[in-house]
């Protein structure tokens, strides 16, 4: 309970600081911050579904597209205001996630990953052919009715804060413990009375709703939605990359991952596309090879080693769950 309060206070403080600092930033920085916050939401939503609940998804793009198109089409075809668009994006993403759950939750492990990939490509193909939604070209949003600059940044900050809050809840609540139990050993969790299907369903729907809201923010940021932009497989891949680089299954891992991958790599190397691809690819391989639980846990462990040597060994038993053997399949090759 104490940890939960601490995390909630820290999150609230960070959100407040972001909202206070936002208006003072120049437009370029605001745009960059908005992009970072959108990626944070998507990566954290992936982390909830895949890092905590252990269902590796390659289909984040499906929900970015659903959310973005919902908000975009709502603004284009009805007179609703942009906050309603975000709420609608979350609701429709929930509904689509619930429908997709019927076939998807029959799958586990790699099959689930492939299933989500196929679902996201099917969504992209559907949007490309749906003339009411603008077909392959997509639609342009009414520019006078969408948030820009500071307001857009604040919206992105609130959405990202919501994703972080869900992650904190999953990390410290009994619900989250049951999710990680399913991830680590599903038969054992089921045997101890965890309602496996209901928990996997909740993780999928929560993750879908958060990703959908990020999609709505992106639609406002781009002032347009198109199958190529909103349903691009790059969304799915970036979510995996960012969460894994930072550390899947921890609350702060994706924050670090988004910063390192987007600000540290994609942004710095945007003029050198080939180098950027090589660095990202090699980084992924190195991470799974040498720091399979991500940079965050790598750094905290290194920090603790230095810190612990200087002070008396205070607590040895308080190992966090993500440290306790992330690899559970000890199948010998």
């Amino acid at each position: 309970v104490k940890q939960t309060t601490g995390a909630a206070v820290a999150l609230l403080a960070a959100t407040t600081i972001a909202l206070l600092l936002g208006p003072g930033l120049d437009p370029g920085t605001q745009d960059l911050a908005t992009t970072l916050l959108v990626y944070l939401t998507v990566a954290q939503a992936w982390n909830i579904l895949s890092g905590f609940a252990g269902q590796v998804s390659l289909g984040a793009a499906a929900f970015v597209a659903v959310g973005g198109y919902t908000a975009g089409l709502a603004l284009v075809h009805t007179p609703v205001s942009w906050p309603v668009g975000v709420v609608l994006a979350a609701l429709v993403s929930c509904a689509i996630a619930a429908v997709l759950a019927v076939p998807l939750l029959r799958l586990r492990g790699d099959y689930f990953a492939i299933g989500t990939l196929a679902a996201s490509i099917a969504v992209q193909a559907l949007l490309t052919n749906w003339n009411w939604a603008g077909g392959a070209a997509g639609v342009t949003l009414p520019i006078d009715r969408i948030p820009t600059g500071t307001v857009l940044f604040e919206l992105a900050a609130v959405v990202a804060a919501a994703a972080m809050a869900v992650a904190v809840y999953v990390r410290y609540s009994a619900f989250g413990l049951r999710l990680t139990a399913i991830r680590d050993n599903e038969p054992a969790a089921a045997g101890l009375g965890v309602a496996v299907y209901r928990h996997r369903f909740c993780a999928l729907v929560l993750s879908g709703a958060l990703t959908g809201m990020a999609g709505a923010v992106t639609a406002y940021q781009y002032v347009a939605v198109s199958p190529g932009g909103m349903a691009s497989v790059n969304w799915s891949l970036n979510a995996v990359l960012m969460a894994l680089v930072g550390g899947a299954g921890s609350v702060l891992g994706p924050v670090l991952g988004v910063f390192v991958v987007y600000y540290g790599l994609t942004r710095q190397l945007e003029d050198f596309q080939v180098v950027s691809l090589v660095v990202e690819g090699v980084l992924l391989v190195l991470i799974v090879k040498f720091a399979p639980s991500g940079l965050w846990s790598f750094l905290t462990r290194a920090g603790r080693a230095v810190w612990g040597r200087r002070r008396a060994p205070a607590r040895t038993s308080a190992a966090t769950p993500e440290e306790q053997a992330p690899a559970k399949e000890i199948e010998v090759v």
Partner: protein
Amino acid sequence: MSADVLVAGVLAGGLYALIGLGISLVFGVLKMMNLMHGELVIGGAYLASLLVGYAGLDPLLALPFAMLGMAALAYPLQRYLLTGLLRSSPNAPLVATFGLSLVAQAVLQAAFGTHPKALSAPYADAGFTVLGVRVQAVYAISFALTVVLCGATHLILTRTRAGSAVRAAAADPVTASMLGLNVRRIYALTMAAAAALAAAGGVMTGVAQSFTPTSGLPLLLTGFAVMALAGIGSVGGVLLGGITLGVLQSISTDLFGGGWRNFVVYTVFFLTLSFRPSGLFRRTVRA
């Protein structure tokens, strides 16, 4: 719907089966999703394009060299990198092969540029008519090649000592290694064989259509779709799975227009994976 549509679908399906065969082999033996399979296919096409461009070889003569070349590239990757990751965490090979596919795309971009390439051959655009049905020569050749390679893979796996070793390693790697089989080498050889099959598919794809360094992803998805339709890990059903996919594409293009093709294909793929995980052609669940 005319017979042309069905025949074109069946023949194109042969090529899809060839692309799916390598994925299926790796998943069946190593229990590993290989996300760089598309790049192995495209890599084969680019290797062949070097031989076609500089040595003036016919793509079909370049094909064995492309197969050998991709196998030689894939063997050390599996032996020294990926096999070690199989035991570290369940997602590690998935992520690592994805990382390698990014690197491969970048290398191909740096080496060959991003403009589309195609392998020129006299039979690339040729066609002939059999019993009133129009047939494209490339697809007829690639279909025949697929039948030969599927048959060879099947015979090697079921009739040779090496094949028994592979099947033993697939069924129970621990017991197999206790009985003295070098499972790590078997895994690497399986990946090399899959890369060779991918390269063969890549050369035929390169003759039939143009390709760029980023063409790998759709090919990977084609391979997964074939595997899902065939039943995951089944080599025998791959040919049927590829043909089903080809006919499905061809019919949906004919009925709804080219735009809806991907939607129909991926929806069927997704639903098959979910509701018939053992594939369309097998009555029993995986043995």
